[in-house]
């Protein structure tokens, strides 16, 4: 009995070894296929929906306007409800269908697919701007269009220093970093933020915002005890707006609240019901309340559909322009007469220098050493329930 099973295991092992030479491969024909996964029904669907509409909108607009060098672009997409195993299934399904590039969404799926896309040589852009993803040594096929979380945090800390001096504050400014309990939340703090604050004479401390909390008064009380003059949020809009409301009840009027990009949007203003007044937002993507050349195409496209960019919000143009940058890489590959493979698209993207997005983001540059496309962004402030510009584009340097 035992011998028979042993034999079977040996056979399986031999088959395994014998089959190691094979490797399936796919080639794109006809339309240019790009894969995408969106969160339309999961925990981040409130922002995932407009982002996905922006990506789909861009592709439709592009195809209506002649496509990519005469070829149509086919977006192969599906909702994955922010479930990592489903993202993995969809990814391999779409790669099998011959996509040359892939649009992801959150930190979970981007991290989970990081090694796989490097093996498959599929350029990947998502809305997760973790600093480490912009390092080609760590993540060779990931590209960041938005300013990385760490860079956002550095820029905000620098602004805090200036603001503190302008206000005539004495001593070191105190900054409370309130974050989502996840890799996303801690990313700017762990990836350089702590050290950056210490080097620049800022007293900073991290405060976790517990998952599913319905009240942040305990955390805010601790922040009051700490004596923070500035609170920086790295979370999504609903907990941030709740914290803003709690802070208002606590009478924290002398504290400046600053949101990094995932809570600096229209949803925050709406949910905070007035408590968002004076909140500052670190925004890598220009909101529709501000004039920008790059917002005209999406606005006109939406107007032709009887909708408006204002009501879709800034995540629409975020998706639109992220897709536009990926498509630019593909365009350059085709124009260079190169075969359309993920590897060549990556090379074309790495040749992008100061690619203009019409003022929606800072000009995008990728190199072989650095996949963080935009190092600069603007700060905005909520006035009368609208995001108004506070500063021009600023970078860390």
């Amino acid at each position, binding site marked *: 009995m035992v011998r028979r099973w042993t034999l079977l295991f040996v056979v399986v092992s031999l088959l395994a070894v014998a089959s190691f030479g094979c490797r399936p491969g796919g080639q794109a024909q006809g339309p240019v296929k790009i894969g995408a996964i969106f969160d339309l029904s999961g925990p981040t*669907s409130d922002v995932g929906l407009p982002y996905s509409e922006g990506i789909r909108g861009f592709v439709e607009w592009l195809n209506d306007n002649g496509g990519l060098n005469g070829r149509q672009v086919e977006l192969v997409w599906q*909702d994955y409800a922010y479930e990592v195993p489903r993202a993995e*299934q969809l990814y391999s399904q779409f*790669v*099998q269908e011959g996509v040359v590039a892939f649009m992801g969404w959150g930190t*979970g799926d981007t*991290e989970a697919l*990081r090694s796989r896309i490097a093996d498959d040589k599929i350029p990947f852009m998502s809305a997760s701007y973790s600093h*480490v993803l912009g390092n080609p040594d760590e993540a060779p096929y990931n590209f960041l269009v938005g300013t990385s979380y760490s860079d956002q945090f550095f820029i905000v800390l620098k602004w805090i220093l200036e603001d503190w001096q302008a206000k005539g504050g004495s001593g070191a400014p105190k900054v409370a970093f309130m974050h989502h309990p996840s890799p996303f939340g801690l990313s700017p703090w762990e990836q350089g933020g702590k050290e950056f604050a210490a080097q620049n004479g800022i007293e900073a401390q991290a405060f976790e915002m517990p998952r599913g909390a319905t009240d942040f008064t305990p955390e805010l009380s601790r922040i009051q005890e700490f004596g923070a003059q500035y609170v920086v949020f790295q979370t999504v809009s609903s907990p941030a707006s709740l914290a803003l409301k709690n802070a208002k009840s606590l009478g924290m009027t002398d504290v400046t609240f600053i949101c990094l990009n995932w809570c600096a949007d229209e949803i925050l203003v709406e949910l905070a019901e007035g408590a968002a007044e004076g909140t500052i937002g670190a925004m890598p993507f220009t909101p529709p309340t501000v004039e920008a050349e790059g917002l005209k195409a999406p606005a006109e496209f939406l107007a032709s559909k009887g909708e408006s960019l204002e009501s879709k919000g800034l995540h629409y143009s975020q998706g639109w322009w992220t897709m536009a940058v990926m498509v630019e890489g593909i365009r350059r590959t085709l124009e260079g007469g190169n075969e359309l493979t993920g590897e060549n698209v990556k090379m074309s993207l790495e040749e992008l220098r100061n690619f203009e997005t019409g003022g929606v983001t800072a000009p995008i540059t990728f190199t072989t050493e650095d996949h963080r496309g935009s190092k600069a962004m603007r700060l905005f402030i909520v006035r009368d329930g609208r995001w108004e510009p506070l500063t021009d584009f600023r970078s860390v340097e």
Partner: protein
Amino acid sequence: MESGIFFTDYRADMALRRKPAQQVRLGLFIALLLIFPFVASPYGLTLANQIGIATIGAIGLNILVGYTGQISLGQGAFMAVGAYTSGILAARLGVPFWLSIPIACLVTAGVGVIFGLPSLRLKGLYLAMATLAAQEIVEWVITHWTSLTGGTEALVVPAPTLLGARVNTDFRFYWIILLAAGFTALFTANLFRSRVGRAFVAIRDQDIAAEVIGVNIFFYKLLAFATSSFFVGLAGALTAHYRSIISWERFTIEVSILYLAMIIIGGLGTINGSFFGAAFMILLPAFINNVGRTLRDVAPLVATLLPAVQQGVFGAVLIFFLIVEPEGLAKLWRNIKDYFYVWPFSY
């Protein structure tokens, strides 16, 4: 027509598969598993690998919940222990995967014993609460023991190498998972033919009676936790190497509940039920997803509603299967076999 099953020697009586039909079915199944990767698409292979790993995890959980009757909500935590142990050994110390995976299994078994200690005094829902605590504690340790686990950062695990080749495709990993799943199924099938396995079942059916007939409850409960955690750790370790990147978000309480759902849908206390449950819980969402994609092109209006509908359909199908056959898919399979056993002369 058979009038009974008779054996003329002990060897045949002791066999794992005693009837010719069983042996033929098993042979066909194994042949199918061996041929599958050569004909399947990469997408099919991804699904197969996910099912394979889930089967190992589900069998592990079934040893504890289905066979020994100890409810556990700590599945995600034990998978995390296996994944992180193997991942850290491979990533930090360069231990080859064929060594790091068994070590991870043993470490998980040890952790399982520690969190199994409350089972001596707690039963049923109270034990569920104690294992829920295990889930929370392990999650906390992983996210806060930064120097070891990397904290909330993802841990990159190098792809395993076997005979100089990197095992980085679904096709290659299939064989590793197949071997591991085969070992798990065979071990568990034999376990419940042994003294130890019978003791587990005795504890499940009536623990006081078991103690009266001489089963050392304390020892066997802990042994059940260790055995179960060993295989759950195996599933976790395989996940780490298969995905080559892990973060704590992959091993939350939702995973624990998903696996409980797998073994309940599949059939408590059965091995083929673990496989059915794992396959069902992975294939059903994928199937609904693909139906959704097809429908989207045909009826754009459906597309906007679809995400919400998908979740609803998933829930509805689960409830439907539980009502049709509360004992799970394994029982459904048995019913089919029984029907054909006497077919066409059923009475």
